[in-house]
């Protein structure tokens, strides 16, 4: 077998121009497979980690998934607001530790604007109870001094090139991101009369927080002082400074995040919310709603999985095709080897050896390619175990794929040499 290695090596070197392409095609397939798997894993993880440390999300009664999507992912809308009175009532419940009201509806250059209190930065967490961290600056003040101050997410800062002290204006409603870009130069923001100053920039979290502009609830109230039913009041413009003199306590908010003193009370509080008499409310446990949401998105996950499987299948079949085509080229060579005394097991070994190292090189190159691509691309999360399993599977499949042609070669070679058909 040792002498076989030398022959295999020199034979492969002789056919390097073809083999390089086999390796490249395998590498591309592996890179694709790897990236798809990583993507699938990343989506699931970032999704599951988008909210933590919150025991209940409370809003007007609608669908739990809808409330979840809007309050955490800032996607879609909810049909109803909840009154600030309910929020205060909730805060007085003996099991409740804290309540953070959320108000959504405006945007800045396609990024959603979240009106909340400074407590949001203290209580909202992601991942494994990791709190929000201010990379630069500080949270806005809940007082009137902080009225026109904003804290922006990491992506907003990076993509828009904002630093501390940047002045930004808000638009009314949730604009589509892409359209907002087109419109930046031509369209004047509806709330341009009351500019905000960026006072804090959050560290990246990998969650929707990165894409959010945070302001105080009072600020949103001030923006809409001169608005009635979603449109500016004609001739009723109230300048920014003058707005401070008005009563800026909001009467209603979109939803509220609730933290409990003890998790054990969660069903109690949920019942309290669901049976609240003054208005129709519901309490949603984030974990449960995320699970429900994921089961819907699971369809997409299955599609990704199917694509991954197809890619793997296609690459193995094409490897087999390439090796079989190469076999024709090698019939003469194998006949010579058989004529000088090589047994079928030698030929089998030769072809399997080549299949193995070609696949190995392809997989290695592919992983390298995918890793480099991902390093250059977005941030990614480690999942070493899954990766090793995948590599093993591709390696095994590649080896098995080279066995078929090997068997054919064994049948062909000797008869070929003795009765040459050129």
């Amino acid at each position, binding site marked *: 077998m040792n002498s076989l290695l030398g022959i295999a090596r020199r034979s492969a070197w*002789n056919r390097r121009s073809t083999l390089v392409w086999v390796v490249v095609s395998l590498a591309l397939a592996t890179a694709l497979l790897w990236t798809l798997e990583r993507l699938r894993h990343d989506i699931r993880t970032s999704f599951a980690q988008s909210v933590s440390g919150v025991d209940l999300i409370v809003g007007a009664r609608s669908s739990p998934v809808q409330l979840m999507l809007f309050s955490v992912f800032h996607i879609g809308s909810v049909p109803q607001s909840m009154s600030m009175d309910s929020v205060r009532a909730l805060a007085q419940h003996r099991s409740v530790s804290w309540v953070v009201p959320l108000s959504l509806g405006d945007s800045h250059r396609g990024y959603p604007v979240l009106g909340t209190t400074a407590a949001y930065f203290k209580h909202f967490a992601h991942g494994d109870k990791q709190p929000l961290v201010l990379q630069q600056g500080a949270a806005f003040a809940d007082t009137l001094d902080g009225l026109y101050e904003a804290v922006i997410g990491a992506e907003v800062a990076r993509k828009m090139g904002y630093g501390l002290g940047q002045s930004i204006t808000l638009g009314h409603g949730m604009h589509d991101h892409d359209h907002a870009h087109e419109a930046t130069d031509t369209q004047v923001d509806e709330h341009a009369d009351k500019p905000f100053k960026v006072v804090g920039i959050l560290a990246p979290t990998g969650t929707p927080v990165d894409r959010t502009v945070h302001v105080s609830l009072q600020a949103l109230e001030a923006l809409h002082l001169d608005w009635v039913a979603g449109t500016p009041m004609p001739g009723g413009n109230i300048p920014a400074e003058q707005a401070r003199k008005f009563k800026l306590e909001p009467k209603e908010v979109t939803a509220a995040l609730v933290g409990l003193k003890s998790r054990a009370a969660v069903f109690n509080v949920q019942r309290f919310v669901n049976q609240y008499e003054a208005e129709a409310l519901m309490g949603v446990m984030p974990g449960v709603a995320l699970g429900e949401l994921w089961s819907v998105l699971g369809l997409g996950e299955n599609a990704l999985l199917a694509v991954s499987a197809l890619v793997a299948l296609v690459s193995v079949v094409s490897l087999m095709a390439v090796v079989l085509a190469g076999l024709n080229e090698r019939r003469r060579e194998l*006949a010579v080897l058989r004529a*000088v*005394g090589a047994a079928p*097991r030698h030929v089998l070994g030769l072809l399997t050896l080549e299949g193995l190292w070609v696949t190995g090189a392809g997989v290695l190159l592919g992983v390298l390619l995918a890793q480099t691509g991902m390093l250059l691309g977005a941030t990614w999360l480690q999942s070493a175990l899954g990766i090793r399993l995948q590599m093993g599977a591709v390696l095994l499949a590649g080896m098995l794929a080279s066995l078929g042609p090997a068997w054919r070669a064994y049948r062909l070679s000797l008869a070929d040499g003795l*009765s*040459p058909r050129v």
Partner: protein
Amino acid sequence: MIDIEPLRFAWTRAGADTLALGPLHLAAGQTVFLHGPSGCGKSTLLGLLAGVLSPQQGRVSLLGQDWAALKAGQRDSFRADHVGVIFQQFNLLPYMSVLDNVTLPCRFSALRRGRCQDAGGPEASAQHWLQRMGLTSELWGRPAAALSVGQQQRVAAARALMGQPELILADEPTSALDAALRHGFMDVLLQAARDAGSTLVCVSHDEQQAARFDVQWSLPALQQAGVGA
């Protein structure tokens, strides 16, 4: 050395016999000129002698060993030990040096490797046979693909002689050479085979060469004997 009991061979079970031979015997060390028109089954007979093909009836034995009595794996190693083969052309691995091509049989047969020890090992033995075939030392390190067709056939002959196998089968070894080269090639091959003590069965169309062999087998004539029997 070679014993053939009346045999019949057909490529397909239902088809007509390609070969029907009477009893044949060949003593060790003899050189055989096997001739006949194209398609009469010369290569098939070589296949039978090498144990690559098995007759439907009858028996082919080499050195007293019936090919049919061996399992596939045993046939392979018996062939590697006792049979050297020269094809019409494309005998060599193009990516290996001349010397490495010649030592190939020693990689697969311990018996032939052992026999090379007397000459000082496979390398020395290979050099010996290359020299006998008239290939000078500056060619030995070159890749086989860099040689002319005539030189390649000589390399193939040197390889077949490695470890002095009892039987050397040559299937039209000179058909790719021009007339001027054929004589020279046959000269050295016949002489080397005699020196090695190997039996040589050589298929050829070139009847001018026939007289230089110990035995002439005309396949059509042998066939008739087989049909008669």
